[in-house]
Each structure stands twice: as C-alpha cells, then as structure tokens.
C-alpha cells in the first residue's frame, strides 16, 4: 500500500510510453540501493532532526521525453520521498501527478517534559488534468489528498494534575477543484472552484504507568490519580473556495491584473471524555471521582481577498508597478460543553452528588488588511540597476472572546489597529564578472498588536560577488535586521546579523572545490512580567552561530567523487555543535550500469545537556542505470 502511488504512476508511464513510437531509447536515470544506519547516543534526537532510516531506497529515477517526465526521489526508507509525473499530448491534454511522503517524528528530551512526541506519516497526492482541445479556454480538474496519521503522546491537565496520554491521530484533507484558464486576445485569466473537506479523528487513552500524573504531591491532602481515561474527538470541516484571476494588456506598455479569492470554512467538532480516578477541581471547589464530558462546537472562517495591480513599462528599462490588496477575515465560533463531575464532594467532604457544569461559549474575530504598494524598477543603465518601492499596510483586528476564555482581565480582546509603512531601496553595479549590490528596507509602524511587533525595523544588506569565467566565483553577503518597540512596558529590541562568504574554484572542468564561512548573531530583549510575583524582568535571547562548509567534486570519464564537511556551532541560549560529513562515489562498471556508494555522518553535541547528544552514520550502496 505504501507504494501504490508509485505503481500507479509507473503503470501510467508505461501505458503512455507504449502508446508512442520510440525510435530512440528513452533516456533513463535510475539509482536504487540500500542504506544502513548506525546511531549511538540519543536516537530520539537523531530521529527528530534527521530520521534517515535503514532500508531499500530509490534515490532517483528519471524518465524523460519531450512530452513526458517522471521523477522519483528518495522513495523508500524514510524520512521523505517524492514522485512527480508530467505528461501531455499537444492539442489534447496535460496531466500532472505528484506524490510526496514524509515521516514526521519528534521526541525531544526537554520539550514539554519530553512527554509530547509523535511518530507519524504524511502522504500527499495531487493530480490535475487540463484539456488542451481549445486555444481560448482550457478546462481543468484536479484532486488533492493529504493524510497525516500515526501515534503520539501528549498530556492533559485534568483534576489538578497532568497525565500522559497515548494518542492516535488520523487527519485526512481532500480537495476537488475544477475550472478553466482562458485567453481572449490580450486578456487571460483563470477561474477555479474548489471544495475542500477535512476529517480529523483523534483518540486518546491513559498511557501505561501514568496513573499518578506528573505531580506526586496531594492536593488539599488528597492524592490525585486516574485509573482509566479515554478521549475521542472528531473534526469535520467543509470549505468551498473560489479563485479568479484576470490580466490584460492595455496597449504595449501597460498591463493590469486582478484577482479574487474567497473561502468559507465551516467546521463541526465533537468530543467525548471519560475519566475515573481520584481528582480535584479548584474551578468548582470539589473533589470528584470521575468526569463524563461531551462537547459540540461549530466554527466558521470566511475569508476573501481582492487585489488589483498595474504594471507600466515607461521604457524598455524602466518599469513602474503598483497594486492594492484587501483581505477580510471573519472567524465565529460557538461551543456547548457539558461536564459531569461524578461522585463529587466539597473540599470539606460535604454535599456528595454528581455535579454538572454547562459552558456555552461564543466568540468572534474580525480582521481586515489593506495593502498598497508601488515600486519603480530601473533595469540596467550601463552597469547600474536600481529599485525603489513603498508599501503601506493597515491591519484592523477586532477580537471578541467569550468570557470563559478570560482568566485574568486584559489583553484577551478588543479592537487593534496597526499601520506599517515600508520603504525599499536597492541597487546593483555589475561590470564584467564583478557585482556589488546593496539594499535598505526601512519600516515604521504606529502601534503594535502583539508585544513582539516592531515599531521600527531596518534591514540592510550588502552583497558582492566576482566571477571569472570557468575558474573562480567569490561571494560575500552581510545582512542585518534591527527591530524595536520602545513603548513603556515592552522595551523590545532585536538585532539579527549574518555574514556569509563563499568561494567556488574550478581549476579544471573535472574538479570543483567550494568553501563557505558564515557567522550568525541574534540578540533579542523584551520586558516581561513574572506571573507569580509581578516582578518585571527582561527576556533575553542570544545566539552566536558559526558555520563552516567545504567540499570537493571530481568527475572522471567513468567515475565521480563528492565530499563535503560542515561544522555548525552555536553559543547562547542552546549551545551546541553539529558536525556533518558526506562522501559519495560512483563508478560506471559496464556500459550504462554503475555502482554508487555513499557515507554520511552527523555528530550533535550540546554542552549543557549531554543527554541530547548523538552520533549517526549512514552507509548506502546503490545500483545506477543511466542511459
């Protein structure tokens, strides 16, 4: 089942190829083999970061003719692989099929006490056929299927403690769409009508051995334990959407485009919880021996966006582009949650009874955004090119939360308005193989909505490169972004700085050497308030990253070698070192057949938290067929 899409694509390809007269052999490039892994240290961290698995692997498969192309990459042993088929017959059809598979794994020793983990797979299939029978109108129909499923672990705060749960998730998203592209003279565009459905199912049970929860201390003298727990949640979302775009040429120098997108997501969710144990609740000031909860909710998101843009070519070298876009979003939600606390008593042991709490919640969010922008592009005038632009965005947000959401007054709703104005100027000077470029982007805002929103932001970038034909290419990039918000009580200040230099040497056509060095600095501070004592403090985030890379590639008539070394080192909030080595050799053994071998090694070390360290080597042997 895992490779049914691959088989389907291969069958389609075979059918297509057999229908054609092939006077010359179809070019083909196949690399298939086996990979072994050797991991020491924290395997969960290795899987979270890299997750390359042991097993059979189609490293590459490419078949190509002028009207058909099949590409497969890294299908087989995880973590990710893809297949892509494109075929067409002029005057009849164009057909695209894509399949992508990705293993998602996370089990971090320090994240949420290491209790939030998952080991899931995402499969994504997308197919579209376009009918090419008519020149003016080309109808198409497409289908996308996205499934995310697998086990995991999570936690639930219930009865004044947190309990580890085993989780099984299965989400399926489907999209069917139909429409047409059209072209009438100088006017062209596309209309798409789509229907999307999301079906989510999540079941949770108490993890083995998790009966006592995370905290051993009793609550008001009563031990908090759970003997049985199940949760079942279902989510269904239906989303019809419409997309329309149109563009037309007005004379030889003006082009106008417009687009409209609207979707209306309508979601229903139900949930049922059953818990038995010895529990407490400060919300109802009672001890109880179980929970039976049912919930039903409905949420809607209606969003539309409209945009218009004009491009004017004053001369062959000077363009002006200007546009306006408006986006409107409405979120409305309502929920009815009935919670029955079983066999409850007051903290004093009185009034024994089942206690029911019914919560009816309704909330809403409105968001409007207007963006206006204009840019002038001056194409090369001699060695110089310039671009200047301005944009302004206005964001209006109105949040109306249900009272049930508000635990501490303030900051959870209201009307917010934020206007950001941005200026951009960049230019480049190119002469011979030398290029020097610089850009400045400066933004100012009137108000923040989130505390980490900037009021002032400046970004500077300088880039230089020099390329001598077929021998050397040198490059250097320096980039700095400063953003701040000096409002009292926020005091946000952030600087990101990165320098990168790289060189590629090609002394002879068969040999290529490359090296790069990069430094990355991140400094961020913002005021925050400790909830426990209201003390104002400074949240500081610091990174000092250093990256070094080097490699060589050599090609002989019947063999090739590639080798790379990477060292990444970070100091600051999470100090770590990451060393990566890669080597790959291919030898053409006979005619079109060859053998490839590769080796990769990753070593990750954290100086402050050695339990996260790992060292992983992978070895692969591959058969090559290249014709």
């Amino acid at each position: 089942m895992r490779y049914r899409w691959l088989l389907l694509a291969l069958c389609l390809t075979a059918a297509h190829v057999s229908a054609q007269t092939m006077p010359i052999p179809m070019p083909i490039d196949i690399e298939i083999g086996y990979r072994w892994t050797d991991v020491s240290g924290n395997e969960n961290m290795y899987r979270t970061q890299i997750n390359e698995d042991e097993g059979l692997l189609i490293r590459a498969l490419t078949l190509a003719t002028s009207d058909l192309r099949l590409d497969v990459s890294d299908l087989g042993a995880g973590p990710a692989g893809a297949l892509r088929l494109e075929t067409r017959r002029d005057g009849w059809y164009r057909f695209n099929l894509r399949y992508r598979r990705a293993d998602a794994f996370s089990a971090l020793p320090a994240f949420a006490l290491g209790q939030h983990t998952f080991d899931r797979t995402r499969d994504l299939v997308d197919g579209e056929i376009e009918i090419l029978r008519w020149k003016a109108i080309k109808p198409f129909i497409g289908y996308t299927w996205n499934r995310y499923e697998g086990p995991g672990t999570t936690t639930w705060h219930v009865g004044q403690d947190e309990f580890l749960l085993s989780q099984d998730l299965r989400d399926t998203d489907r999209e069917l769409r139909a429409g047409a592209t059209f072209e009438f003279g100088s006017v062209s565009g596309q209309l798409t009508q789509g229907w999307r459905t999301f079906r989510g199912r999540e079941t949770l049970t108490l993890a083995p051995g998790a009966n006592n929860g995370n905290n051993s201390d009793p609550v008001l003298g009563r031990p908090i334990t759970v003997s049985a727990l199940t949760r079942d949640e279902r989510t269904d979302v239906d989303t019809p959407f419409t997309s329309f775009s149109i563009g037309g040429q007005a004379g030889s120098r003006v082009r106008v485009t417009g687009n409209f997108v609207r979707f209306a997501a309508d979601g229903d969710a139900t949930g049922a919880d059953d818990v038995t144990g010895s529990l407490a609740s400060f919300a109802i000031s009672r001890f109880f021996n179980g929970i039976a909860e049912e919930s039903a909710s409905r949420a809607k998101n209606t969003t539309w966006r409209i945009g218009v843009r004009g491009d004017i070519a004053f001369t062959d070298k000077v363009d002006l582009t200007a546009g306006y876009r408006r986006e409107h979003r409405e979120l409305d939600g309502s929920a009815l949650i009935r919670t029955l606390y079983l066999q409850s008593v007051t903290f004093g042991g009185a009034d024994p009874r089942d206690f029911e709490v019914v919560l009816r919640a309704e909330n809403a969010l409105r968001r409007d955004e207007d963006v206006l922008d204009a840019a002038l592009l001056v194409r090369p005038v001699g060695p110089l090119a310039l671009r200047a632009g301005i944009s302004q965005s206005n964001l209006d947000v109105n949040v109306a939360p249900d009272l049930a959401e508000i635990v501490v007054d303030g900051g959870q709703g209201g009307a917010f308005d934020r206007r950001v104005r941005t200026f951009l100027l960049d230019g480049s000077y190119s002469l011979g193989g030398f290029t020097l470029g610089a850009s400045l982007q400066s933004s100012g805002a009137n108000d923040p909505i989130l505390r980490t929103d900037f009021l002032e932001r400046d970004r500077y970038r300088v880039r230089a490169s020099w390329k001598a034909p077929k021998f050397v290419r040198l490059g250097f990039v320096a980039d700095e972004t400063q953003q701040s918000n000096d409002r009292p009580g926020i005091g946000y200040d952030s600087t990101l700085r990165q320098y990168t230099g790289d060189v590629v040497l090609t002394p002879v056509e068969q040999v290529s050497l490359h090296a790069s060095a990069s430094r990355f600095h991140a400094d961020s501070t913002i005021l925050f308030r400790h909830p426990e004592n209201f003390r104002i403090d400074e949240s500081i985030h610091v990174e000092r990253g250093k990256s070094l890379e080097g490699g060589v590639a050599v090609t002989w008539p019947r063999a090739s070698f590639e080798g790379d070394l990477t060292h990444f080192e970070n100091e600051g909030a999470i100090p770590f070192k990451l060393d990566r080595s890669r080597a790959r050799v291919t030898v053409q053994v006979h005619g079109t057949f060859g053998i490839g071998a590769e080796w990769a090694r990753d070593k990750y070390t954290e100086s402050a938290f050695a339990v996260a360290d790992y060292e992983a080597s992978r070895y692969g042997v591959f058969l090559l067929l290249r014709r």
Partner: protein
Amino acid sequence: MKPYTFLLLLCLALTVRAQEAAQPSCGDCHDEAKAFVTNPHARGAVVKGVVPNDVCTTCHGDGAEHIESGGDKTKITVPRGLSGANDTCLLCHEETRGGMHANTNQVNCLTCHSIHKSDPRSPHLVAKPQLALCGTCHTQAASMRNKPFAHRLDRGGMTCSTCHDPHGRRAKGERSLALLGHLRTTRAGEAPCVSCHTEKRGPFVFSHGGLETGECTTCHETHGSSNPKQLVRATVQQVCIECHSPIAAATLGSQPPSFHNLSLPRYQNCTTCHVAVHGSNRDPQLLK
C-alpha cells in the same frame, strides 16, 4: 499515366528527396541537438526521433550562414545573459517578465535555467538542484538548513519552490508585489505552511489570537532554527511569556494567573497543560 511520365515524376521525387537529405541537420555537428529530443522545447516537433532544425532556429536564428561557413560561431545566435533572456526566452514566456526575479544583469532566465545543460534530475530545466541554485544568492536562507531543526530541503521532494514562487505568480496577480516576497499560497489563498500542515488550518472555536493576527512565523522560524520545533526562542515559556505579559501597552495576549510560578519546572513548560496552542474546539484555555 504513361511510363516515361511516371519515370520523370519518380526522378523528380528522388531528386527532391536527395536534396532534402543533403540538407545538413544541426545534430550532425552538435550532440546537444540530438539530446534535445527529450527537451520540453522540442515538444510536438520531434519526427522519428530527430529534432528538426526549425526547433534550433527558434532560439538560435537561421543557421544557414553558420552552416555554410563551416560552423563559424559568430554567424549563429547564442542567447546569453540579460539580452538572451529578453530576446529569446521572454518572447514566449512573457508572464515571467516581472516580479522580484525580474530581468536584470544579476538575475535573468538564464541565470537559473540551463536549456542544454540542466540538472538531469531536476524538472523545468533548472541548472542545479534547487537548494544549490537558490543558495547561490540566498546564502543566509540556505545556511539556515545547517541548523539542527529545519525542513528537509532537497531530500525527498521538498524544495525552495514548495513554499516560494520564484516567478512571483505575477501573471495571476497574486502576492508578487514587489515588497511582499514570493510566497506560494494555497489555491484558497492561504499561507504555504497549511498546504501541508492542514490540521493547523482550523477554523477553531477558541483560536490562538497570535496565530490569527500574526502568522506562523510569529513563533516559528521557517528556514531552520537552533531551537526545538523551529521555535524563535530556546524555551517554550520564553515564546509564550514575551506576548503574554500585558504590562502597560494595550496589546493582545493575556497575563497568566499568578499560580503560574515560572521558577517551577511544572510552569516552565506551558504546553504541558496548554497543549492546543494552535487552537481548540473544546477548551477556552487551550487545554485540549
């Protein structure tokens, strides 16, 4: 028909055929022309496995003088750089003219696409695998992949163009605006993140305000991060508390109740209780 008339016509036909056969083919000298049989630019034109000269002359101009001179390179057009892109590629691919990667000396069609020597394993005739190609200029973004927590680019299907549209979708009038970057939206117009992470799309009854008013990048670094879950800060509590501290200004983000003692490990891991940080249909405090 009389026999001599038939013979005459036969001779005439053979002469014409012989003359046709005598017409040299580009592939006689250029191996690239033979290999072009699989190139999308030869689509529909290949006859019995041979690429007609007409296909070559579309971009290289009339080759008669080049042939007559015995292969004089000055007598044939070789599209290169900005002028090559303007005078050749854009005659057909007009819709890619604008956008951030608009035609300049620094970046033009032939900077990224190689018509005859593209990477054999990459579609669309791109010159190199995407990460190497885009990383030539976008060195910062490319170097982010060296961080421990990052999307797996060029390893099994995900590439730069999964999220970015290098041509800016200008033809469709979408977010190709000069200052807004080149994000590839879903067909319903949403950010590219939710084209894969569909379960984060909602809608949720109890949505996380930061996600609805900001965006995914408010909390996550997309290209790669030193922090778990590609977060913008090293710890979860730091990500949360930086917004959830309404000290003075009227910003969105509520203050946690005072029993959240951040000096205790229990409260340093906000998501141990508030698991549904992207939104919930079941709990106002995002507890499930």
